């Protein structure tokens, strides 16, 4: 199980809003696939999947606010 964590995005940025999930729970992803799009201020950015596997849990949904360091989803590599 690998957690997909919101990384550091710059000075003074402590959170972002989930704007779009490219995958649903239960779907297979490859390492580096764009997994989720987030928004901060007037910028969107994508988080790539850190590994290949199945999206076993989406913790934050579209419209939710996530803090830096929090897990957005869990990928099952088995």
């Amino acid at each position, binding site marked *: 199980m690998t957690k997909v964590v919101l990384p*550091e995005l*710059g*000075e003074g940025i402590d959170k972002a809003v989930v704007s779009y999930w490219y995958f649903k729970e239960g779907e297979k992803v490859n390492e580096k696939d764009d997994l989720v799009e987030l*928004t*901060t*201020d*007037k910028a*969107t*950015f*994508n988080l790539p999947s850190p590994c290949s596997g199945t999206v076993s849990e989406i913790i934050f949904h579209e419209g939710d606010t996530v803090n830096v360091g929090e897990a957005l989803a869990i990928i099952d590599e088995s």
Partner: protein
Amino acid sequence: MEFKVFNLGLVDFKRAWEFQREIFQEVKNGLLESGLILCQHYPVITLARTANKKNLLISEEELELRGIQLYEIERGGDITYHGPGQLMVYPIFNLNYLKKDIHLFLRQLESITIALLSDFGIEASRYQGLTGVWVRKEKIVSIGIAIRNWITFHGLSINVKKDDLANFRLIRPCGMDIKMTSLETILSRDIEMDRVKDGLIRIFRDTLSVNLKEEVVV
């Protein structure tokens, strides 16, 4: 870092959107350090993925009748309008060469356009924590970017010509009741788009300490 300027002229939004993706791939693959695309668009309304469609104040059929295109795109922000009187600025910049800081880059884009407007004798500023650049309470520069792999795309639009502001009445720009202004409206004279472009390239270079590799017409 070096950047290459691409002048596209007056093009469909879609053409510039595709061109951005081509340059993005070149930057991602290391063929180019960074690119700056400059162009003007035929009338188009763009919606961010998180935009509220209620901010589009006329029907899609009416838009078609008026020859205004509509696209949903992957930048940040809400809804905006672009037309031939605006200078569109798409920096495809690799922040791995600068600083990996999303808000810093947005503030730098604001600083660049504030300096540009200052060269024209216009005192512009940031306003109440709202991204973009304002002259008093009217907006002159709109910003909405996307970042993938720390490479930026989409960008900003500068209202240059005075005739192009009427279509903003078809939307609530950025989802707010904003009045737009332009260089020509403020200065009450004609402004050459090329003068704005040349000034902008110079200020990009100086503000970000980046070198202009070459400028091409595409």
